[in-house]
């Protein structure tokens, strides 16, 4: 019998924030005092996800795939190996699979059972990715989900949804926007959004970052 198998009497008074700050602080103090965790190790992990591991890693991978056809072939054939060759990832992006969007097919990634996500290349998932709304709807109404993100695809485009039910992890290779011939990888990177690599968005158009640069 564990603590939470019963129906719970979690109080509705006070915000989750206040309750959780106290609860997690108490848990950390118990675990550290008992010698199970070291708070400095926790600081290191938090700092890594706040400052070093995020979607900028995925964006560099995608930009390289756009700029270098040989790298793209390797990425599609074995993403773990191809990404490993770039030296961007702590350890290895194990069991990583890159799936490519084409005019005929759009890919979208979900985890209906929990929130599996390619942390090594995209960092921690956004709240919406972990939400019941996304997890429930992505597999039955992917076009409706895309509409929530303001994305409309041609009616004949195949929508392929990848449910991450194992330890395999997926990153979408979005289509390279028109008007980017000859762009450097550094410039291409700015067009690659996190949502484009999950499949709930498309890569930005050059005009979208032109505005950003002008401001």
């Amino acid at each position: 019998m564990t603590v939470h198998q019963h129906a719970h009497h979690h109080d509705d008074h006070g915000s989750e924030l206040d309750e959780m700050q106290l609860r997690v602080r108490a848990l950390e103090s118990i675990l550290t005092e008992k010698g199970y965790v070291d708070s400095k190790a926790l600081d290191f992990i938090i700092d890594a996800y706040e400052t070093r591991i995020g979607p900028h890693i995925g964006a560099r991978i995608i930009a390289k795939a756009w700029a270098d056809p040989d790298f793209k072939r390797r990425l599609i054939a074995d993403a773990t190996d191809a990404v490993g060759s770039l030296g961007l990832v702590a350890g290895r992006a194990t069991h990583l699979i890159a799936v490519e969007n084409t005019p005929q097919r759009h890919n979208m990634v979900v985890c209906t059972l929990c929130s599996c996500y390619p942390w090594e290349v995209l960092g921690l998932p956004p709240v919406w990715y972990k939400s019941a709304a996304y997890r429930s709807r992505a597999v039955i109404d992917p076009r409706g989900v895309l509409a929530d993100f303001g994305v409309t695809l041609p009616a004949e485009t195949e929508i392929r949804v990848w449910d991450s039910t194992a330890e395999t992890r997926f990153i979408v290779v979005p289509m390279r926007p028109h008007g980017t011939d000859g762009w450097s990888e550094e410039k291409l990177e700015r067009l690659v959004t996190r949502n484009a690599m999950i499949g709930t968005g498309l890569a930005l158009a050059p005009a979208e970052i032109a505005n950003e640069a002008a401001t």
Partner: protein
Amino acid sequence: MNGVHDMGGMHGFGAVEPEANEPVFHAPWEGRVLAMNRAMGYLGLWNIDIGRFSREQLAPEVYLGSSYYRKWTLGLEDLTVQYGLVGEDELAAGRVLHPAVPVKRMLTQADASKVLARGSYERPAPAPALFKAGDRVRARNIHPPGHTRLPRYVRGHAGVIECVRGCHVFPDAVVAGRGEEPHWLYTVVFDGRELWGEGSDPTVKVSVEAWEPYLDRA
């Protein structure tokens, strides 16, 4: 288990609401609990599947009513009690009341980068793969009360093996206490109409990653 965590295809949760300029963490405790989960996993007492099952076992109204990191907190509390590391009385009191249990290792700052690297779940194959790409299969109509990674929405439905992913640790076995029991893992793709009926979007295809014991030849 046929729990509320198995959400694929459910209605009623509303629109997906992306947050502009979302921070990595919405409050400091979220980062602490994420990091504690990684550090406690490093003790080697449970694996990722057992961690997932701890969250699936939360009462339905708790699961649905809690944020992601709140579920991680409750699941971690349960695991520490289940493995005898912390007493329920200690969680209730919010302080240590009993001596610690000896552990084999603890994650130090010097080793913390190790938990950022993802381990491999692939294992040597005990037997050749039963299926190959292109084979037609049917997801078994099974309803195990324990942990499983076969979502309800594909059970009983026919699909096609798209890719053989190697022989992987079998979550159902780990959580049932049978050890890793590696099985072949496949990407199985289903037509949307097979899953959602005649009136559904004909352009949709959905794949799951399915271990061999989840599948029959169709």
